[in-house]
């Protein structure tokens, strides 16, 4: 492709800055994936917490639902 036709990321027509302070080091990828894993583990734990919250109450004998 002709380089002259490339759109510059900081072209004034499109004012949103697309760069930020994090680099592209693979360590940051690992950090992001670790955060995602933690969030997913939290979501799965949340499913089981809901199961636990809706168990019939032994003290009152309530068998709902």
């Amino acid at each position, binding site marked *: *492709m002709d380089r002259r036709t490339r*759109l510059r990321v900081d072209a004034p027509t*499109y004012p949103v800055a*697309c760069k930020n302070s994090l680099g592209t080091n693979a360590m940051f990828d690992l*950090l992001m994936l670790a*955060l*995602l894993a933690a969030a997913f583990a939290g979501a799965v734990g949340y499913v089981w917490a809901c199961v636990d919250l809706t168990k019939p109450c032994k003290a009152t004998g309530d068998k709902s639902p």
Partner: protein
Amino acid sequence: MTWQGWLQIAVFAALITAAVKPLGGYIARNVDAAGRVQRALAPMENGLYRLAGVDPAEEQSWVSYALALLWFHLAGILALYALQRLQNLLPLNPQQFEAVTPDLALNTAVSFATNTSWQSYGGETTMSYLSQMAGITVQSFLSAATGVAVAIALVRGFARRSAQTIGNFWVDVTRITLYVLLPICVIAGLFLVWQGVPQTLGAYVSATTLEGGSQILARGPVASQEVIKLLSGDGGGFFNVNSAHPFENPTALAGMLEMLLIFMIGVALTNTFGRMVGDQHHGWALFAAMALMFAAGLAVVYASEGTHNAALSPFGIDQATGPLQAGANMEGKEVRFGVGQSALFATVTTTSSDGAVNSMHDSFKPLSGLVMMANMMLDEVIVGGPGSGLFGILLFAIVTVFAAGLMIGRTPEYLGKKIEGNEVKMTILALLCVPAFILGMSGVAAVLPSGMAGLNNAGPHGFSEMLYAYTSGAATNGSAFAGLSANTPFYNLTLAAAMFAGRFIVIVPVLCIAGMLAAKRVVPASAGTLPTHGMQFIGLLVGTVIIVGGLTFFPALALRPVAEHFAMQAGLTY
């Protein structure tokens, strides 16, 4: 305000109301039963199950359904993350964009997998065509299908008797994608191409302007992304300025179609619900409650935007409506849409979970900003996203019948199912966790330097930028107030957390309620049963939404848009 503006609103209301019954029936017939289209395309559907190793006849408990959903979206987030991080090495990148930075890639992946579409980037300056098509557009389809699947699972909870299962997640997602989303997208996509929306894999082009300068015109596979962006309640645009861009939304007619697409599935699902539980009148009652809240919000926004902006008067700006100009508060709005369609679009996009914008919400008056934020804060119950609107309003309906039952001292029933402690517990969990995230994270951002660094305005307007961002994220709306510099590690990561929590913290209890309701027997209606058809129920439901949903946020709104409104009256702007 003009008669043309009111006419557009009337046409929109008529068309969307007309779509409720046919589309609602179509969804009910082809998603939960063997409809004509489903029977015709069954070989293709079954081929997909064989390919994926899914037994379509195997039903799932709510726990299996929820875990399948979570795994599915984890895979989606990872795939979209990888596409963005590797886009510089992959094909279909004619502009040779670099890889997206890790925090922005995570934010974007979570955003589209959760049907939020918050965008901390400008699409045309950041994403390759492959990332846009195979990443973002695919997730738009799948996240919308998930929302509808969860709603259908909840409806099965009401419709089934003494059952241990609520459907099969893989079957639901496949059918909704094949029979609902794809056909509408093909037809509406062609309509948008006819109106002038580009659909090409060619590189950006250089044009010579009238002044002799040169300008790069970004283009790409826009129509195919645009149509699912709207239909999915997703809202993530190909271009940075979203539906304000003439290549996304070229004409007022295209704008009308875009608004219809945003609302179409959300309103139709009220009818699907009515059909599946054998009570279409109740489906219309839910639609009426949504319509009332929508009309009230729209009236405020149009009245606010359709009149002069007092802050501009001292500068001698002519704001009169006339044959040569739209007049009123045109700041931040496109001339081809005017105030009427901009106010309508802003209300549609914030009452749904879509978040597409055809004007800059930051430039609306504070009262309009208040309504737009309140629309999102009500947990997406005024139409909402595909599926999320229906299960959102059903959560409030459960609170409504529970409160009505307390008033007369009997165990409440809703559509023949007794609403007991566990259902109410899960409902409250779903309804209160989202406000906790919105207010908590806004509070944290307001005291941390990283949060304050992103603000472009001072005072209550700056606070509004921050509150709007977390509201938009946790309510899975994705629209932006503008003004906030959100592409920083702090905002990318905290907004990703808000979006993840806002989606799944609601969906899991909803599926739990579906499982519990499905297991119950049906109780015959008696003299003490609360009728769920008439104005009494609609009034109670709207009141519950406003009291439970709205008042949670009143202090935050009082500090921000309400304070800004009175400051503007006194001549203070920020």
